């Protein structure tokens, strides 16, 4: 199991645990993290699971061209730490992951 801390725009923090194969978007949905929408269910079609990965994301493969393209058009500002949560698939035993949830997705 991995632990993810979602820092919400309100300042509140939510802790989620999820196993390998689950994406940061799915883990957020399963734990009812507000601010992660995931309209398309994870097929990188909608850009509504934008997250800023502050810590522990080194184990994720870097974003591909398609994801980088989608990120340019997310509702909140693009930063170096921006990822689509649906494309960040958890592996076995990753270090603690801390992500900031943007204040808007749509």
């Amino acid at each position: 199991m991995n632990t993810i801390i979602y820092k919400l725009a309100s300042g509140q923090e939510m802790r989620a645990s999820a196993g390998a194969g689950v994406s940061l978007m799915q883990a957020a949905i399963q734990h009812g993290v507000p601010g992660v929408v995931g309209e398309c269910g994870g097929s990188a079609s909608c850009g509504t699971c934008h997250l800023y990965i502050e810590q522990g994301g080194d184990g994720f493969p870097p974003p591909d061209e398609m994801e980088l393209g989608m990120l340019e058009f997310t509702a909140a500002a693009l930063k170096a730490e921006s990822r689509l949560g649906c494309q960040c698939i958890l592996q076995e035993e990753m270090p603690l992951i801390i992500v900031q949830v943007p204040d808007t997705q749509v």
Partner: protein
Amino acid sequence: MNRQHIIILGGGQAGLQAALSLRELGFSGTVSIITNEPGLPYQRPPLSKGYLLGKMRAGDLALRPADVLAQQNIALIAGEAISIDRRARQLTLADGQRLTYDRLIIATGSRGRMCPLPGADLPGIYTLRSKADADALGAGLALLAQAGHKAPVLIMGGGFIGLEFAAVATESGFACTVVERGTRLLERALSPESAGYLQQYHEQRGVRFHLATQVAGFCAGEQGRVGSVRLTDGSTLAAQLVLVGIGGIANDELAAASGLACDNGIRVNACLQTSDDAIFAIGDCARAPHPLAPAGLRLESVGNAIDQGRLVAANVLGEGKVWQATPWFWSDQGREKIQMVGLGAACEQSVIRGEVGQGRFSVFCFQNEQLRAVESINRPVDHMMARKWLEQGLSPTLEQLADPNWDPKSLGKSSATPPVPG
């Protein structure tokens, strides 16, 4: 308001979204979702893709886990509503239960249209809309696989569901034939360019297409299951499994029976309110006026379910928000990602950017020199950009789009068009 009971009839994507949005907006009264499907509200898009291929398990389909619903104090009631007493504001369920509402949101969705042709009731003929449909279809495929035949699968209708299933069936090793009565695929949904590209893609994977061809009936084969399909030209195609993908029908019968105005969907105003002030309708089952279609538009899509779910929550709580979201859709077929935004059916002119030969292009569709719709095949950036443009009422010119050196990101930033504030 916060002591009221809001009942949502239907636990699909739209119904669940309405419930979640009511809570997000601070409604603390009672929220009940009545659903006639077993289990938690689930995602439908994977049913014709990863779920059928076994890449996604049933548990992965849930839109929200049970504890999130409990935490949000959203009651999920299993049952079939059989009547609405509008005067008493009461719903009666098949088990006799009566539930009183202050506001009712109908989100009963749609179902796959079945064709009234001879033999259509033979085992082995399916539609695909719900998880139960997908489970039946998956069991049908498993039966064929067990028998070890290279059994031919036939798809009636060359629309999105049919083509998504064609990709799944060929990936699972079945020979696959699509019969479409139109002269091309996706006639009402996509431009000839995109449809032609997709046909070629599926043909390369072994799918055979019979266009401008109609099914006349189904004939029994082994063990009383479907064995072949008769066409109107008199010929016959072998088919040991048939998927009928010829569109959807709004589940509006209960609304119609209770006297609400219906016309291929429950008629609602731009605020998604029916002819009864206390009743709203959203998602696949609702027909609402839209700036792009003032006479009424009924959409069957996740994007619309979410938009209308959010909007209706605000309106039930007293706001008067008007439905004007830009429609968007997507379809995944094998490795092809198709994204669409806007409504392009009436478009007269189009420009292609990208490389059709390499399977990465977008078709920009124009009507009266205004951009109306964009279809992107494996070009998600174009899709996202076009969504922004259409939402902000921006339109590039045909000439700009036809110029490969024009930078689309410059649109809305030039001195000619003032930048949008914020």
